[in-house]
């Protein structure tokens, strides 16, 4: 399948290439037996590409992401980021989780400042940078609030600013909008796409939601029910900039692609469901 993605001429990809080769991950269960979560996963993401991974529950999507970030070690195979094999925590990566990873005892400003501070930027510069980022995600004026004073969508904006402030080459997102309500989710998706088109990091985006994957990504990878493996990869040829995600859902081409990928994903979802249902609770 050839890549027919159109990119806006102004954007220069600043991202790094991700190459995952033969990645396998086994866990030792408490009863002492080995459990294979991922089997021989191979894929690569080009610099500046937005790649979404969809798959049924428990297919090892998050595990893959953890290994790209260097938080977790592979049982076999390798992960290369920007041409270097991942050993220890990968530099130049930011992570966004489904649950907030914000510090409740720090104000919004200090939460966003954390990235630069951890990288030894002076307090003054970090604060200036954080203020700028809060303005960019539309949270100017909320610098001194604590996170519990914000709504779910605003917390996501803070998390987004905190993740992007270090200008990462790679942005890893693990169902970042999974816990949001439908309207807020659509707004956040549109904002994410806007920021991504400005900065063009490589994005690896995990989701259950196929609509979300198709609307956002250049490429969608479908994973099999556990043990996870790559089932298929689809290039999404919707033109960019794509504009508001809500509108895109009614686009004829969007619906065609979505339907096409769903045929593949459906089998895996059904298999995962049958397997889970067969296990007595």
């Amino acid at each position: 399948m050839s890549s027919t993605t159109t990119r806006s001429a102004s954007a220069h990809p600043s991202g790094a290439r991700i190459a995952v080769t033969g990645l396998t991950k086994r866990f030792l269960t408490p009863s002492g037996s080995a459990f294979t979560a991922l089997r021989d996963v191979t894929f690569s993401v080009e610099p500046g590409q937005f790649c979404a991974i969809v798959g049924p529950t428990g297919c090892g999507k998050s595990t893959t992401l953890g290994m790209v970030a260097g938080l977790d070690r592979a049982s076999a195979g390798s992960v290369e980021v920007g041409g270097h094999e991942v050993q220890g925590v990968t530099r130049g990566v930011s992570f966004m989780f489904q649950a907030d990873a914000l510090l409740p005892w720090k104000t919004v400003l200090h939460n966003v400042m954390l990235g630069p501070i951890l990288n030894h930027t002076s307090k003054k510069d970090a604060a200036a940078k954080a203020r700028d980022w809060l303005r960019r995600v539309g949270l100017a004026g909320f610098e001194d609030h604590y996170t519990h004073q914000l709504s779910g969508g605003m917390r996501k904006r803070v998390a987004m600013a905190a993740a992007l402030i270090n200008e990462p080459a790679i942005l890893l997102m693990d169902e970042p909008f999974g816990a949001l309500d439908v309207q807020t989710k659509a707004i956040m998706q549109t904002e994410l796409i806007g920021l991504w088109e400005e900065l063009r990091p490589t994005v690896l985006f995990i989701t259950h939601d196929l609509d979300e994957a198709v609307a956002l990504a250049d490429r969608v990878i479908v994973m099999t029910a556990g043990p996870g493996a790559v089932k298929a990869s689809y290039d999404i040829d919707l033109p960019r900039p794509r504009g508001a995600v809500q509108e895109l859902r009614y686009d004829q081409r969007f619906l065609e692609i979505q339907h096409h990928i769903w045929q593949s994903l459906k089998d895996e979802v059904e298999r995962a469901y049958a397997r889970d249902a067969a296990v007595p609770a």
Partner: protein
Amino acid sequence: MRTTTAPTRTDETGDTRFAAADKAASTAARRLRWRRRGLVWLARLAFVGFIVGGWQFCTGWTPNGSSTPLVDPFFFGRPSLVWQRTIELFRDGTSYGSFWFDIFTTMHEAVYGFFCGAVAGIVLGVVLGQSAFLADVIGPFIKMVNAIPRIVLGSIFIVAFGVGSTPKILLAAVLVFFVVFFNAFQGVREVDRNIVANARVLGGSSLQIVRHVTVPSALTWITASLHTAFGFAIVGALVGEVLGAQRGLGLIIRTSQNRFDPNGVFACMLVIAVITLGAEFLIGLVEKRLLSWRPVDQSTWSGV
């Protein structure tokens, strides 16, 4: 044609009828809150009156045909005599000198012990909480030491360090240490894994993560333990003094015991209670300052 029946908002401040009703309702609610607070205090006073009054009455009332009161004040003291003894202690001092100096001695030991124990507990709790290996190695020993009735250590400290303030500080510190240690350890264990992972990915070193994530997160647990810990510091200092001392409230308690003077013991207890309440208040202030970020508890709101 307008079909809505609900009042429409006319300006920024909203409908004036609603504003008036809101104001009246909140005034009424505030009055209700004050009344409840007053009732609580009244009930508290009644409770104290019942206990102290009952004690005073039972130690004074002689039943028909009996030569001694219902409860013998010789053994159990009497509130009026306790109060008198307290005043005497402050006014006349003891045979050792000024009563203030005894209070100072005990406080000095308790506060030093509290600080040493708390710092050691926090440091060791955070270190062991960080490292699963160290925790596994040292865990059983800590549990073993914790199982020992630590008050008994007081005797060893007195033998080893004499009757000065060192053994009392040590005893207080040991008692405080375990309370704070277990809480700090648990607090570090409870840190949100996502937050730690995020800080690591952002480029944080282990030391930075301890400073920015682990310790602030465990602080809720640690400050909660400090309340109990201060009580233990006082217990440590007092028991140390009862075992053997040259000055201090514990010494006065022991001399009162030897002189069959329960009122003296109660007078010291009264002083200690006041001091502990004061310390509790100060710790509460520190806690409030450190944990100012925490959301206001919704249960303190009341429906109107």
